[in-house]
């Protein structure tokens, strides 16, 4: 096993991407993901890769689109306002069925917002984001180790399903340092017969495109894509259960909110409250099954979010509103404290017992 090193989450993503075989990075600077781009600027030229600071986010995502068409591993990273600018290109990449990695180290919004952490791009990340019917595979790391591991996983899943993947982190995850064991260099060899690599006059032309002027053709691509999404929803949902075995109340949280909530769950247990947590690791596909199963066991759910309540809608859908779901949230760059989460749990428990 490799040595444990201390790294910021942003740096761990960058190094893991390089180890996953990514040699093309296009971006435009924004806090709080700056260390990621800075790391790429330093490393890529030394390993024969490309780091390019584009003139704008719109240009950067279209450069990603271009390289993705050649079948090479490619990524961009930004933070909330910058990711909004990239939505048009992300929709094109999804429409052309290309693998690529988009990293969003979220900050508070809307608008230019602030530079402190947030999870308020949940809707944008999980429901499409740009125009048209599509999804991204969305991974939500909650430690620096996961920032590294999920970068590799995101590239692998994107290649496997030929679609863009997003790492949805936040300012805290990006800026914090933790010990991390970096992944071994990737040996992934996914055949990409669709890639634009030059025919050498030996094969038919490949065509990368998202324009279909015949409605019937366009409809067919949509249906086919959603067949693929069904397979992904069936097979790729990831989550972590914490103290759920005998839980009467279930906290649902991802990313930094799950870190805070874990403290609250432990504190609640010390007070004799039977509380557990389900932490979605993939936000799309959303881990519906464990939540549906929990809905038959527990008395209620607390959705802990750094937003005005976005994931809570998916919690309600997954549990078919069989049990009450309450929101414990802060917004605008604020993070709920373990005490605030505990208070929400106690309030729900008090109201139900």
């Amino acid at each position: 096993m490799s040595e444990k090193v201390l790294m910021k989450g942003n740096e761990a993503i960058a190094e893991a991407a390089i180890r996953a075989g990514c040699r093309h990075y296009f971006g435009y600077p924004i806090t709080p993901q700056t260390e990621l781009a800075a790391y790429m600027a330093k490393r890529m030229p030394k390993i024969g890769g490309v780091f390019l600071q584009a003139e704008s986010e719109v240009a950067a995502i279209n450069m990603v689109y271009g390289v993705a068409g050649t079948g090479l591993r490619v990524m961009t990273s930004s933070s909330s306002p910058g990711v909004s600018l990239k939505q048009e290109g992300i929709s094109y990449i999804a429409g052309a069925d290309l693998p690529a990695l988009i990293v969003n180290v979220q900050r508070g919004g809307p608008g230019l917002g602030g530079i402190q952490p947030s999870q308020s791009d949940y809707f944008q990340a999980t429901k499409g984001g740009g125009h048209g019917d599509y999804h991204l595979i969305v991974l939500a790391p909650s430690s620096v180790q996961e920032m590294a591991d999920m970068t590799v996983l995101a590239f692998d899943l994107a290649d496997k399903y030929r679609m863009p993947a997003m790492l949805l982190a936040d300012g805290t995850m990006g800026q914090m340092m933790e010990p991390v064991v970096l992944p071994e260099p990737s040996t992934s060899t996914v055949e990409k017969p669709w890639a634009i690599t030059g025919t050498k006059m030996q094969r038919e032309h490949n065509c990368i495109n998202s324009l279909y002027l015949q409605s019937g053709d366009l409809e067919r691509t949509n249906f086919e894509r959603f067949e693929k999404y069904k397979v992904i929803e069936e097979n790729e949902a990831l989550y972590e259960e914490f103290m759920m075995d005998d839980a009467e109340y279930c906290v649902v949280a991802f990313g930094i909110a799950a870190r805070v909530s874990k403290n609250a769950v432990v504190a609640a247990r010390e007070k004799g409250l039977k509380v557990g947590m389900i932490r979605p690791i993939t936000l799309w596909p959303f881990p519906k099954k464990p939540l549906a199963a929990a809905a038959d066991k527990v008395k209620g759910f607390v959705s802990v979010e750094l937003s005005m309540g976005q994931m809570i809608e998916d919690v309600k859908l997954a549990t078919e509103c069989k049990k009450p779901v309450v929101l414990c949230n802060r917004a605008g760059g604020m993070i709920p404290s373990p005490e605030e989460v505990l208070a929400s749990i106690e309030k729900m428990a008090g109201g139900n017992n």
Partner: protein
Amino acid sequence: MTTQLLIAGFGGQGVLFAGKFIAYKGLLEGRQLSWLPSYGPEMRGGTANCSVILSDDPVGSPIVANPDVLMAMNLPSLDKYENDVVSGGVIIVDSTLIERKVERDDVKVCYIPATKLAQQADMPKLANMIMVGKFIKETNAVSYEGITEALKKVIPARKAEMLDINLKAIEIGYNAE
């Protein structure tokens, strides 16, 4: 055992570096840990805080709201965080920059004129590491042994000449009254 440390001062005092050193020292001792900076949008100046958690168990929230140990590097930091320290906790004060006394009587308080000691030792930028030395002495949260190895992790090879002076600074803090 878990130690939640908050180092607070202004930009340029080496708040984040001091935290990084303690984090690496913990890593080399096989501890679980997190290091989280908090600062404004300014490149220089402004407030700078750093939360470090050292634990035998996986670290939950990396945010330190109620520190076991507060290292106050300037007056605004002491004013802001004095009341957040847990009862029975430790407050280490740079008494060169903070003239007032800590008002609480349920915490252990260590006054050390770190900035003055740094100037006297001709290392004006290393008050932070003098504070670190005091932190090690008073809390034993990390061991004094092996500080060289930890320093080598946080001082890049191109600045290797800074190693000895940082060691000296920690030593001054560790041995200060």
